[in-house]
């Protein structure tokens, strides 16, 4: 029980710290991502151990896709706009990620192979 409490407390404390930092600095960087960076730094510095984090982090990562479902259903709010612009929206949904996936992965492969040859 204690290990679950400790694990969840670490995650929530990082999140709370990040929210406080963003609140007082007034920046627009999302607090969860800042909290992730804070937690990573704590792990790298050895202040937080992997085994402290695992009890809660592993199950939450395992079910992470569930948390997107309510937002995903939100598209039904814009059915009329989607209907009148569906060719444009479909093109964006397919072409934007496909071109980004291909470009980024190809550039990575190119530079990795150049680095390996050097």
């Amino acid at each position, binding site marked *: 029980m204690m290990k679950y409490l400790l694990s969840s407390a670490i*995650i929530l404390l990082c999140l709370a710290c990040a929210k406080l930092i963003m609140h007082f600095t007034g920046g*627009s960087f999302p607090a969860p991502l800042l909290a992730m960076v804070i937690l990573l730094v704590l792990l790298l510095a050895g202040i937080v151990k992997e085994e402290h984090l695992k009890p809660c982090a592993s199950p939450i990562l395992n079910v992470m896709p569930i948390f997107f479902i309510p937002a995903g259903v*939100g598209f039904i709010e814009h059915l009329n*706009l989607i209907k009148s612009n569906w060719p444009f929206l479909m093109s964006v949904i397919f072409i934007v990620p496909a*071109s980004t996936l291909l470009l*980024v992965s190809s550039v990575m492969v190119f530079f*990795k192979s150049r680095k390996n040859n050097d």
Partner: protein
Amino acid sequence: MTELKPDLWWLCVPIIIALFLLLRAFNTRMENSALRSITNPVFLSIAVIALLLINFNLPYSEFAHHSQLLSWLLEPAIVALALPLYQQFIHVRKNLLLILGTCSLGIVNATFVAFLLSVFFKVPSELSASVAALSVTTPISLIVTDSLGGISSLAAAMVIFIGLLGALFGFMLFRLVKIGSHESQGVAMGTACHAIGTAAALAEHAKVGAFSSVAMALSALLTAIIVPLLYPFLVNSLL
């Protein structure tokens, strides 16, 4: 409008969880990789719930309000991504500059391609601004889309669909163009398909997931900086 008894709305969260777990159990039984992608449990859960809400004429606002707990849990889940990131950080540290450069390139490409498509289809500026920041995690997309004068809720839905498409077909695309490197796949998935892509990357391989997590985090930071500058520049120069 069909009214759902107020005391039944609390069923939203248990129904979402049960539906997702059921569909995931079904999905893991699929041996064919294409069938496994098509029966993605998030995609099917969204489709089933959307159909239920539309069919029974139930208001989305009520559904969103009563499933807030799940949306709230998204934040600690993003924090927990530090764990796979740490586990693979040793491989990432050597390539940090390269990842930073390729992420920036990916973000510029996503905004530029979306802008070109909006010019080609002659859509209103409001819609064009809604698709400027899609290759990023939902909270950043909301903030950036708002700042550009777009419809943030539409952007959020598009972000989810892009993530779903990445999760469904991203690895098929990599196999098609014979890109097998874990680093390249991970960085591309994290840059183009944010957290849903990262979840799929984690399922594919821990190393792909770690690189995807790094790329997702860097993309969030870079999108918040690049897109608010790039989009007005594109509008002023090309329109």
